[in-house]
């Protein structure tokens, strides 16, 4: 995209991947801004590969039962629930 500036079609494509609808004005604004921002990101092409010795450790815990969030509380912010479950739109 950065070789040839971001197009409205590119913006619509990522918006579809990200499940964010956009109106036509937003698509045009974003196409213009993305071209500038992605051109700025192109500088990353010049970054060398760095040998790293990452200081990583596994963090383990015993697999034990403990109290957890009450079911009613967990469902408290949902718009739709049924029989103690979240209720979402159709998957089709």
């Amino acid at each position, binding site marked *: 995209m950065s070789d040839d500036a971001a197009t409205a079609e590119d913006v619509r494509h*990522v918006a579809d991947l*990200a499940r964010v609808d956009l109106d036509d004005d937003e698509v045009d604004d974003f196409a213009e801004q993305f071209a500038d921002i992605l051109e700025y990101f192109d*500088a990353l092409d010049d*970054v060398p590969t760095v040998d790293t010795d990452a200081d990583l450790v596994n963090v383990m815990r015993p697999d034990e039962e403990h109290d957890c969030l009450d079911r009613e509380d967990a469902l408290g912010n949902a718009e739709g629930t049924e029989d103690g479950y979240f209720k979402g739109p*159709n998957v089709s």
Partner: protein
Amino acid sequence: MSDDIFITRETVEGADDGPLADTTVAVKDNISTEGVRTTCGSEMLADYVPPYDATVVSRLKEAGATIVGKTNMDEFGMGTTTETSAFGATENPVAPGHVPGGSSGGSAAAVAAGEADVALGSDTGGSIRCPAAFCGVAGIKPTYGVVSRYGLVAYANSLEQIGPLAPTVEEAAALLDVIAGPDPKDATTRDPERSAPYVDAADGDVDGMTVGVPTELVDGADEGVLETFEDALDDLRAQGVEVVDVSLESVEYAVQAYYVIAMSEASSNLARFDGVRYGNSGGYDGNWNEVFGEAREEGFGAEVKRRVLLGTYALSAGYHDKYYKQAQNARAWVKQDFDEAFADVDVLASPTMPVPPMALGESLSDPLTMYLADANTVPVNLADLPAVSVPAGETDGLPVGMQFVAPAFDEATAIRAASALD
């Protein structure tokens, strides 16, 4: 005027006694508070009421603190001015007509305006230090892993830490003592060896300390900001500090790397907001995927959409290596550069922000210019390091902050250096 500082004003009393028994605390609105709505400055979560407390909130309550409200912020922490909030902008209480900085602008403004004794913010790329600098208060971004992120609504989880804002470095350090420490609910927390409380380091004893000034973080800064910064360095020299120039070549790529990583993590983290379990559903009916797209169009503001889309793009097939992988390489390089610099100096200093507070309304139309203002703060998050912003003076009546960066888990050194300017 202080009406624009809080999104929700609600008093929560803590325990009867404890180190914060007589202290009021304002809490950024992306930190979960049981029974008190937590919006992240977003229409998406306008009615969201968490069923549990963040670990830091539990610790505030146990320490006896009184929470006075949830503060305004850039939507999901995405901004440098607090203007991307769905609840409107916050005016800088010490620089009328100007932004308070962001994204923890409400928290810094609450402290500056005396609406709370101290406050909690979160810092993903400077979101504690920037508003601290712009509002003339102190702020600490802890080393990654020092403070639990349990209950912090994620924006870019590999970069962010919760931290304190306060009138002085000493008070900020005392608040850090309350919230820091390992948490079984956040596997990224660490238990670093500490010989003394953080607050003990705020003794201003900098005699014999070596402070490095990265030339890359000074070149290009606003002239008035630089003058104030130089005056503060002179103040430190008079207290026995040796000031030396250092070079951090990699930071020229830090803003690009930060935004690629933060946007990529945001695109993943914000995928949870589909309006089913919590958040705005829009009440739409029909196919799952289409309904989500509609709910998210309605719930997210422009800056959040921009970052989610750019992050999705940076992670998509064909572009992952060009953007995300190179950004991770840059992150490793920045870390290495800092490590090398700390072989010769105790602490690094720069202006916290290269510019004074922007006028309200000035930054919203040009996102790239807003991103560039983060040049001095984002390297610290990429390198997981601790940093303190302390008021250094003013330029044309506008506050200027000075940032001190220390090696990982050496909060004490940054606190000590900054406290010399308290």
